[in-house]
């Protein structure tokens, strides 16, 4: 007799969780990138993933494996998660290390930089790239640079119903597309840029408020962060095509 108290694990829910895991260098979902190539769902979940090349940074691979393990483990009914990294120069070390819950620097003793420092650097870049998109959306919505640099976190509210963000500036409400703003706020919170509701919404790469005369310069810097990420994404995508062709990854 099946126990009433054990919730069944739903494949869509697992995929949703996996979709929230990003390739930290590209700031894109690993599901969207087609990295997931095997998924078994039940109280014991098994996820197999493959990266564009066998030489992808072990630190990046490690972060993705840990994020998969941690986010899927949180689902009700999941008792165990096994992650397998395939076709990588360090696939055994990473697979075993992550499934055994060992720390990165115990597995890779010769790494000179901890995995969290690498993650912080990449997250800061992702925040800049997302800031570029959010600011572009606000410029398109009619805000001027001075209004944009003056915004505080409290000035923005999200309405998922209408898929709009409402921005209050100088007593006026302006509407912008939801997604670039929510994506930005998520990463800004994660990176500690937004802690207090009264914090400035946008800051420089160094994390300080933007002076109106510095707006353009900062905007150009965030644009280059965006170009770098999508450029690197194009390298990975081309390598992935060269290595595997276009099969049917899970979730696409």
């Amino acid at each position, binding site marked *: 007799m099946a126990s009433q108290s054990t919730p069944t694990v739903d494949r869509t829910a697992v995929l949703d969780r996996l979709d929230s895991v990003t390739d930290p260098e590209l700031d894109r979902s690993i599901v969207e990138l087609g990295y997931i190539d095997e998924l078994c769902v039940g109280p014991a979940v098994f996820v197999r993933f493959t990266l564009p090349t066998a030489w992808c*940074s072990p630190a990046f691979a490690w972060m993705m494996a840990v994020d998969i393990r941690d986010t899927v483990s949180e689902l009700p009914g999941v008792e165990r998660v096994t992650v397998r990294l395939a076709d990588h120069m360090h696939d055994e070390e990473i697979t075993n290390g992550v499934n055994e819950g060992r720390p990165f620097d115990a597995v890779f003793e*010769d790494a000179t930089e901890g995995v969290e420092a690498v993650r912080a650097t990449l997250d800061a870049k992702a925040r800049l790239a997302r800031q570029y998109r959010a600011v572009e959306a606000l410029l398109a919505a009619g805000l001027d640079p001075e209004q944009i640099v003056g915004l505080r976190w409290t000035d923005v509210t999200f309405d998922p119903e209408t898929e709009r963000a409402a921005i209050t500036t100088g007593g006026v409400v302006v509407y912008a597309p939801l997604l670039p703003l929510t994506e930005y706020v998520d990463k800004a919170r994660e990176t500690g840029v937004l802690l207090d509701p009264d914090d400035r919404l946008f800051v420089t790469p160094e994390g300080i408020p933007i002076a109106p005369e510095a707006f353009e310069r900062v905007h150009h810097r965030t644009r280059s962060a965006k170009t770098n990420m999508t450029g690197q994404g194009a390298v990975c995508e081309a390598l992935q095509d060269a290595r595997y062709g276009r099969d049917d990854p899970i979730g696409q």
Partner: protein
Amino acid sequence: MYHHEGEDVFILDSHVHLWDASEENIDHEGGEQFIQCFYDYHTAFTPEEHQWDLETYRKYGPEKMVRDLFRDGYVDMGIFQPTYLTDFYAEGFNTTDQNAELATEYPERFVLNGQFDPRDDAGLEKLERLKDDYGIRGVKLYTAEWRGDSKGWRLDSPEAFEYLEKCAELGITNIHPHKGPTIRPLNRDAFDVADVDDAATSFPELNFIVEHVGLPRLDDFCFIAAQEPNVYGGLAVAAPFAQNRPRKFGEIMGELLFWLGEDKLLFGSDYALWEPDWLVPTVMNAELTPEQREEYGVSLTTDIKKKIMGENAARLYDIDIEEKTQTLRDDAISQQFDLGETETAAD
């Protein structure tokens, strides 16, 4: 010589290799991984009809190289950038001494660059020897190269500064640090371009040509290069984007032209990673989209392309293009391949 819209374009390919990754030469598994990784890059960014088989790719030899560059590839001159990797390959992957054989056979066609590594024993003497033997004007540096327990070195370290001083003293003015894709990027340091900043400020008499424009740290590179008058960008790896990611190529060029300007970018095929016979026309025909031109306030005119494809590198290596063109018109290679006056327009 390439012909574009009625104009002659001098092609100075600033990044070529003559490597040996034959199985006999590999004495560490890293050597096999390295050439496999190169081959992935080759197939990922080469049109299918131009792709090589892996055996050819491992070791193609000097005759094929000369044909590929000068007979079929529009290249007027090439700059040898060595890659030693002596921990992986018994005789080295692509050393200055190996490259020298071809460079001394065709001195008008090749510039031969050397290398240094501050971790070498008696490295300063080795550098002097390269200058004495070959009169090198530049060095290619791999700061991320692993050696023994070391996971690389920094260009702004006291040890590296000793070598840069020696370069200045010997008149080795062109420093080409590799800042781009790397085989074992275990540490972020491998991509870090920050060390170039300090070195460039401390040695204003030297030029720093950052190979692969810092990919995947293009943004950091642009920011540093914009502030340092002696920092340049080498386009190897970025150039083949023009083939299968033309929009992305436009965006990267937009950034580079915006931050560095048209006088500080150098074309390089990275031969044999990619071949100039298809890459040169592809880059020469590349354009920014109207949106990109508007966004970055720059465009890829023929004049700018001429700078990128040859004039900028010629300036750094004191090559007088007009004089050189005359010399090359009937040199051994032009005679051998009947290049002289009978070239057909390629566009």
